[in-house]
């Protein structure tokens, strides 16, 4: 009995969705600070991984591809947003946070997150992958398509920059 790949795709995609959708939206929200946009970015990434399915046969690479698509999506969304802000100033928060959420995220958290979002792309992404998804250096490298050496450098510089930004803040 031989499996028809086309049909199998959806089942495996469903598994990916079930296992990773929530954490990926959360990852995107770290970078974007806007849940609806984060959901869109992640849904986009799922459509993309489905399109690329047949080229990526190794399941572990599919997840790396998916993560990478989320980061790419978040990055371009941020750029568009920055451009828009430059053209027409809009309130800093695109979505109002719920009272509950506001209570859980303290002022200190807010400062740290703002500093994180202010970092250069690679540094921010390395820190998010490491401190939210707890990925190993090898997995971060696979996700970002860079060497583990670069991951070390970006992470190190990111932490240093974050520290500096927080010191200036206080």
């Amino acid at each position, binding site marked *: 009995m031989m499996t028809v*790949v086309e049909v199998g795709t959806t089942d495996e995609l469903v598994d990916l969705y079930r296992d990773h*959708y929530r954490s990926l939206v959360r990852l995107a929200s770290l970078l974007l600070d806007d849940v609806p946009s984060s959901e869109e970015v*992640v*849904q986009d990434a799922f459509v993309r991984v489905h*399109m690329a399915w047949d080229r990526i046969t190794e399941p572990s690479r599919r997840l790396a591809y998916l993560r990478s698509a989320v980061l790419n999506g978040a990055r371009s969304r941020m750029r568009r947003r920055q451009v828009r802000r430059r053209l027409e100033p809009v309130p800093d928060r695109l979505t109002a946070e719920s009272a509950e959420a506001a209570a859980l995220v303290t002022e200190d958290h807010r400062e*740290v997150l703002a500093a994180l979002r202010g970092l250069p792309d690679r540094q921010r992404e390395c820190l998010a992958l490491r401190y939210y998804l707890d990925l190993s250096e090898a997995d971060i490298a*696979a996700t970002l*398509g860079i060497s583990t050496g670069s991951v070390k450098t970006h992470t190190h510089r990111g932490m240093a920059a974050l520290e500096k930004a*927080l010191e200036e803040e206080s």
Partner: protein
Amino acid sequence: MSTEDRLRAAVTAATDTVEPSEGWDNIQARIERREHQWRRPAVVFPAVAAVLAAVVLAAALLTADRGDKTDVITEPPVTTTPTPEPDPEVATPSLWPPTGTSQSFEDPKALALSFAKDFLGMPNPVIGDFREPGEVDIRPKPQATGLITTLEVVKSSVGAWSVTEARAANLQMDTPARDASLTSPVQLSGRSRAFEATVNVTILDAGQVLARGPHLAQTFFTGGGAGAELEPFQTTVEFPTPTQSSGMVVLSTASAEDGSLSEATVRRVRFLTIGGPVPESFVATTTDGRVVRFRTQNATETASVAAYGATGVSVSPDGSLCAVELEHESERNIAMVRFSTGEKEIGLTGSHPAFRDDSGVLAWVRFDGIVVYPLPPDGERVFDPLQGGASGDVRSLSWHPDRQTIAFERDGSVYLLDISSAQSLDDARRVATGSNPLFVGSNLAFVTSKGAMTVDSAGRTRLLFDPGITVTNIDVDASGRHFLLVDDKHNLFWSGGGVIEPLATGIVDAEW
């Protein structure tokens, strides 16, 4: 507090507040929309379709020589340590939680409770302890001590539990086996013992639950009585065309007191007949030189015409006429056979006949190139024979639904030919290395060493299936879902929702 700790705390706090809403439907809709876009354009806007076809050609040409790296998205260079081949048995699809929901269970007992209540509809279930390697017993209510359904549960690599099968001791299902591919009617067999001697049989599409409708099909049979030994049963159930490629077969009994569910055996199965009915019959040429119409259900012959040396076959879209390729002392001819009379009506010189979807036009390969004639072929030809090079090696013609483009195979490559503009066979455009081109809707499919591939409008290749057999002939039905495949050993297979099943042997070519 170090910056690292502050970062970790901030990240945890911020992400904990994010609870995404259900996104699967959106994803699925967008994927379907994408696929729909290049599957059916010809039906709606012929002009758009023509442009699109040109895009297919251009994109396919651009990408044909670059292998599979044809996506618009830049794929990151990925450096992963080699991982062991995944064990296919591990990836057993689950019955519960249903795929496509964000429901996730970190505890097998919580999973069992949800399955008992939400899937089976037990009013007040009692959940037993988890047993290694993966079993949990459930009972419909505290006092029902004799009614035990055992759930087989597995844990995914990320720690989420799911139910893979449910088995009631009093309801043993021998067939269908797990993940067997079903067509309607399906025969069920096993042994049972039921208090009221009534066993309910329910067939569910993936996503449906036993607790409430809709169900794909529901019936019952009379099983062995209470207290007695398990008694063998055998019953046949018909079901309508499923919408999903998988589903479940459920045997269950209900309480005599209140009609609530007592116990159930639930098994996952696949459906071969997704998305539309399978054509009732197909026509094939056999190794003993006959043209035979077979009933799809069990490959039994319904009509047969002797045609010495029959090799290829093309069935007219209305099913009345067959163009049969006959080979005799290395000379090839085409005979038109009408099944209703068994008579060979017209003889043509040439080979590889292919009916266009308006029945009245036939394309085939003649000594002087590809020719296209209305039928009977004494009418005016549709266009002049396309010459250029030897036409003897041209084979496997297939019409695009636009009625303008013909795909064919030549020297191990797939070509597309626009008959409205081409001056010669050399105007055909090579699109890929492969054989047996076939239009699935307006998508071009063909066979390569890797299996059957399609090229979509963006020029991406996509594996349709990896048959693990050497395909020599292939055909697809009008729904684009059900394939007939002939291998180099004259075995005929068919494929629908998820698997390829052997159908007959001694077959040279076959068409729906």
